[in-house]
């Protein structure tokens, strides 16, 4: 999911940076500062998620968790993911500082999209909420894969194969994320529904 340093061309990096800055600005504006602890905890969860590997067949995949971050934070997912990605690039050398903008947009934009599309459904009855949260987890990784493929359009010569590959190879992650997100939302709905979208007074 993380694009390495030195792969993308200048215009792509600049566009990514500008979009990430805009998204972060909107996110900071939307942020409920009374619930900043929640933002921090979700940011930490995202930071750690990349270290959790699953071995599937011959390969290993890692969690992204942008779906659940998006559902719980909405636009604030942008600053949360930006912070987590910055620290990932500094501590784990995943991605890099110059590609930070592109990587942030790739992961945070799908999170916000899923929040806008599926967030309202979380408030509905139990089964609808479970299905919606599964799709939030699934689609947030799917859109992230699509955006990742799109960022490579100017640098990979056989773009269609690469984008197909990115999406297919991330299918297991989408399913796992969907299940994880559905479980988290079901649990939160039972235990502490106040932090879910739509429940806010």
């Amino acid at each position: 999911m993380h694009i390495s340093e030195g792969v993308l061309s200048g215009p792509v990096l600049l566009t990514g940076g500008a979009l990430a800055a805009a998204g972060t600005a909107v996110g900071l504006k939307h942020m409920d500062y009374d619930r900043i602890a929640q933002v921090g905890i979700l940011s930490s969860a995202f930071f750690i998620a990349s270290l959790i590997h699953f071995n599937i067949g011959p390969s290993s995949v890692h969690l992204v968790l942008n779906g659940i971050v998006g559902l719980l934070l909405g636009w604030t997912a942008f600053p949360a993911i930006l912070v987590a990605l910055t620290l990932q690039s500094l501590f784990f050398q995943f991605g890099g500082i110059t590609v930070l903008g592109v990587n942030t947009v790739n992961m945070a934009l799908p999170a916000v999209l899923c929040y806008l599309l599926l967030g309202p459904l979380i408030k509905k009855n139990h089964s609808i909420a479970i299905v919606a949260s599964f799709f939030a987890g699934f689609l947030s990784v799917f859109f992230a894969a699509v955006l990742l493929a799109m960022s490579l359009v100017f640098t990979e010569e056989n773009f269609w194969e690469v984008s197909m590959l990115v999406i297919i190879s991330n299918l297991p992650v989408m399913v796992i994320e969907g299940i994880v997100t559905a479980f988290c939302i079901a649990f939160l709905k039972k235990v502490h529904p106040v932090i879910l979208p739509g429940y806010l007074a």
Partner: protein
Amino acid sequence: MLGGLVYALLFLIIMTEYAFAHRVTVFAWVEGDTVYTESKFSGGRKAKNAPIEVFDSQGRKLLEGKTDENGEFSFKAPKKTEMNIVLVAGMGHKGEWTISVDEFEEENSGNSQNPASQDIKATPPDTVNEPESMPDETTVTSPCLTSEDVQDVVEKTLDKKLKPIINKLNKSLDPDHGPSVSDIFGGIGYIFGLVGVGAYFNYRKKKE
């Protein structure tokens, strides 16, 4: 259409090896004239059959090749210059490693065929690890065993004996150890610190 699909599937099978990782590293070291490289993903998976390109300091491509089943690739250095070794793993993944000129010089300074060995011969007191027989040989000037021969033998033996140690040293310089526990907790610490700063300003604003 079908052909395209088959091609895409084949491509997928080949590429799956490096489909998921989020970081690739290539690591290279010099032994004699040969440059050895080792490529892997975070988590220790070897980068198999990944293309490697070697550039000189001016950015001209010197050669290219592919890693083998162990993610290793070695080549004879075409010239002793600074080299930039780039591993292209596709899908936005790329790893780089630079070999400086010094590494070649260090490696070759002991080689008797090399002009550098002239310096050593000219200043014998500087070379600490020379065998005791060395002065004897020079004074006796035996026709069958010159000081160069002795030096050559010593160098060769030393090379052989030191090889495992050098390998180990090179491996320990390898940057890819994966994140440590301190990295993980350090990162979380930073996030909580930011939360603290945010909470502090929020609290101050409320008080006013």
